[in-house]
């Protein structure tokens, strides 16, 4: 009787150990998987922000006219003003640029001389509300005064 009881106890002990080992293995495996998923998600967010920043900096509609070209980084101030007005007032334009820019905020900050800030586009429907910002130095050209200013284009993608 005692021997049977001891055997029964051994069996239960073995089962408990196996279950504990399986649980430890699962916890460890899940932890690694979660870490990997987070890393992949961060990489995708980063690739996404680069993709949109490339699109914005190559936008033909705000570039300087060819005769006054200051290179690829020259942006026409009046085109920026009219584009941001158009996106605010025209629903069709808003929808089109929403498809191009997605969840992004695009701002132009004058650095020297002048300190104005122009927001071209701002849309955010992401859950996390965290952002990845890319900064691009630009030349802001005034076609009426024919002067150029240093500026920074900030492209912040919401994750």
């Amino acid at each position, binding site marked *: 009787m005692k021997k*049977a009881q001891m*055997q029964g106890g051994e*069996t239960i002990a073995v*089962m408990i150990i*196996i279950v504990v080992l*399986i649980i430890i293995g699962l916890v460890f495996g899940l932890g690694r*998987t979660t870490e990997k*998923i987070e890393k*992949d998600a961060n990489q*995708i967010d980063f*690739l*996404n922000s*680069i*993709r949109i920043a*490339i*699109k914005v900096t*190559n936008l*033909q*509609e705000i*570039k300087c*006219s*060819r*005769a*006054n070209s200051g290179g690829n980084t020259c942006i*026409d101030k*009046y*085109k920026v*003003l*009219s*584009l941001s*007005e*158009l996106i605010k007032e*025209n629903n*069709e*334009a808003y929808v*089109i640029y929403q*498809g*191009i820019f*997605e969840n992004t905020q695009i701002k132009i900050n004058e650095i020297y001389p002048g300190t104005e800030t122009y927001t071209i586009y701002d849309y955010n429907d992401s859950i996390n509300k965290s952002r990845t910002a890319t900064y691009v130095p630009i030349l802001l050209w005034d*076609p*009426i005064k024919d002067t150029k200013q240093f500026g920074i284009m900030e492209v912040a993608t919401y994750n």
Partner: protein
Amino acid sequence: MKNKKAQIEISFNWIFILIVGGAILMFFIILSNVITTDAEKTANIKTTERLKTILSAAENNEESIKELKELGYEATFLCEFGQLYYQIKDKNTEPEIITTNTLFVPKTIGKSKLNAWSTTYQAPYDITTTLLLTDEKTMYLFDNSSDSAKKIYYAFPEEISKELIDLSSNKITFEDQGHRKYIFVTGTNPEPQIAPPNLKQKITIIKIPQNTNQGEIKFYDYKEPNYGELETSTKAFTTQEILQGAIISGDSELYECTLNNIHQREKIIAQMNIKRIELINKTYDSRHKCSIYFSTTILTEPLNGIINALENFDTDYINHGNNIEELNKLNNELRRISCPMIY
């Protein structure tokens, strides 16, 4: 009695081992299936993001041709609700939207090296960079007897699979070289007859006009399911870049889908330029030499003309072309008198 008890105990032990062992085995089989499915989904997401990044980077390289790595799978492109989507063939994935709205691509590409050719569409200012994406398995065959077809043949980069062939006898005779698709481009010949009936589903014929800057394109296709008679579809174009896009695509629906997106962008940019003219006009003194251009409809008229022509482009493409010409002349005039140019 003791023996019997021991025997029963041994049997119960074995039953216990079988049940527990079976349960553990089932558990790990289910777990490995779940992990495999998740890994596949992750791989598909990564592939999708990679393709999106490749398309973005290729799209933003001005006027260039890039050979991309082999796409290890076939992707099918379709147009739904005015948007381009792509789907990985033979995989159970949802169609993914293409954010590159200015992509001209054949219906199916993949399992071969890709060629990404970016050109700039101007009307007359830069509207957008168009991305012409094709692969080695799509062959473009140009009619040697047509000047316009030859002109486009020489404009196509060497990296793209292309050939000059003789279509003067009105019959297309060629050997199937194992390509997925053959797109024939002809200019002067009337509707040709296809010689090899077994290859009908692989063939599209595109008839282009003499003027490669403006006109109508005719797409001839043998449609599913029987590939019986040739079906025709006529679409308009302006600029050689758009014509090249239509040829690369080889599909009238996909061509129209992309062209509509480009025209939407063109309309918005024209509206933006009108706003810019109004903003500049507010800043100018009425005595300034440039104010005559910005305070009257001299500049806004051709811009509004472009917007109106885009509403019915297939019938109004000539007006579209004329307004672009007019805008070009006015821009040169603004440059001559040192006033702010439109572009």
